[in-house]
């Protein structure tokens, strides 16, 4: 009988966490669905989704969210890859640099937006430096609603700056799984640092690169505070619209419709992610 009690112990230990997550994730998910399809006076309706799709900002929000995704994710991965390979070369003092590179991990997207606002604002440090160097005669309005490339650049820079740390940690964890022998073997066969990276390290790092790619894709759908800090409502994004419809326009049904859309996108990306992960386990077993 003790043997049986012992067998139940792990489940008893997991139960609170699982129950809590179910309560705070599964139930609200169902509620979001319901909110999004019931009419103001009760009864099923698709009116909220229709209103969402017909909203002036909807297509802009879509375009901007995808644009940011396409611009930010590759930039982050390249930056993080360079950082990770540098750290992994274990030069003297690499621990300090890892610490510095990881600092943005603990900085919110709102704070990151404000940090870069100091750079990109009209009388900010970027304009000051450009003018100081004699490259411009008067400040450029990076964050004006008329300057979409300017706003985009600022957001891409700020968000890449912030979330590169997450990708970095994923890649370093992946690099640590590669036995040091591989690096030495590459030395023996005369691969230079660059060729070694391309031919030996990158293929071995593919699983980590894939996870980083998918995790960042999922998070990119949630981008909002960094955009608000830099551009206000000049640049609608999907998560921002959900916030605006709930907080400013007091329409929980439309906000819920946006929430359902974002959940759907996440679930699709998660399924892809788990597929990839499953693939990786097969690779490890092989």
């Amino acid at each position, binding site marked *: 009988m003790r043997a049986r009690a012992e067998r139940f112990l792990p489940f008893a230990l997991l139960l609170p966490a699982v129950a*809590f997550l179910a309560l*705070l994730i599964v139930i609200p998910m169902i509620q979001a669905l319901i909110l999004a399809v019931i009419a103001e006076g009760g009864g099923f309706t698709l009116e909220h989704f229709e209103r969402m799709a017909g909203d002036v900002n909807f297509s802009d929000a879509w375009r901007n969210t995808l644009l940011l995704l396409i611009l930010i994710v590759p930039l982050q991965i390249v930056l993080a890859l360079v950082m990770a390979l540098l750290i992994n070369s274990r030069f003297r003092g690499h621990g300090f640099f890892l610490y510095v590179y990881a600092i943005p991990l603990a900085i*919110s997207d709102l704070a990151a937006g404000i940090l870069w606002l*100091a750079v990109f604002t009209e009388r900010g440090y970027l304009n000051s430096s450009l*003018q100081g160097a004699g490259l411009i005669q008067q400040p450029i309005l990076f964050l004006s609603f008329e300057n979409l490339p300017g706003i985009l650049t600022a957001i891409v820079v700020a968000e890449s700056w912030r979330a590169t740390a997450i990708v970095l940690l994923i890649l370093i964890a992946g690099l640590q799984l590669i036995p040091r022998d591989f690096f030495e073997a590459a030395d023996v066969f005369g691969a230079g640092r660059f060729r070694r990276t391309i031919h030996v390290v990158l293929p071995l790092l593919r699983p*980590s690169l894939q996870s980083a790619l998918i995790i960042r894709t999922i998070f990119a759908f*949630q981008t909002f505070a960094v955009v608000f*800090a830099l551009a206000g409502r000049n640049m609608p994004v999907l998560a921002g619209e959900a916030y605006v419809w709930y907080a400013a326009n007091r329409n929980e049904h439309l*906000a*819920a419709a946006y929430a359902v859309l974002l959940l759907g996108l996440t679930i699709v990306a998660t399924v892809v992610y788990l597929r990839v992960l499953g693939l990786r386990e097969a690779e490890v077993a092989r």
Partner: protein
Amino acid sequence: MNARVLDRTLVYGGAILLAVWVLIPLYLVAISAFTPQARLFDYPKPLVPTTFSTETMQFFLEARGVIPSVINSILVALFTIAFGLALGTPAGYALARFRFRGRQAFQVIVLATKMFPIAILSIPLAVTFLQLGLYDNLIAVALVHTAMALPFIILVTGGVFVAVSHELEEAAQTLGCSRWGAFLRVALPLALPGLAAAAIFTFVISWNEVFAATILTLRTRTLPAQVLAGLGTSPLGFKFAGGLFMAMPAVAFIFLIRRYLMNLWGSR
């Protein structure tokens, strides 16, 4: 220059360049936050500050609602740590110590929730909390933050308990402890630094969270919610001081948990 010297120059040059990239916005917002408000619109700005003043910072801290929101943020973070560790530590321990049916399924759940946009769920949750009388309540925010932090807590504590040899607990059991007593007297004290790291990371998650905090509160704002709500109307000095105030803890916190960074996002 021989190849080795070139190599080292490239490595250190690259490393320093990237460190500058990470540190420069922190530096710039710091000097902005300690520039008097009137001089914030100087143009072109010097990259090395000529004046130092706490006026802007004072203006921010004395602005209506800021100090209460800081206190709220700390309270929410502490509640989140309490809930999160209470729920997550047993689960992390179970993952570290037992091979059981459904272990993999549980790990998949943890991985999936790590990426799940829980903040978005505050929209339907706000409706529920309104009905339960929990709307505009710090506990409600802490509950959502707990759901966001829980997967990280489970992974970090799992890693921590793996590092504490099971034989130590078994030895304690043969020496007169119950299972629970062995955990309390041996595993827990040894896991404490790791649990502290989990607590710190939980604090970071909660301290930084904007979306849920904004949706779920009206007057009882946390600091990020307060700053976000004022983005459209507040002067630049307020934003810079607020940005610095929100970002500052990161420098200390990442230093404190640097040994556990790998457990947070290592893809296991």
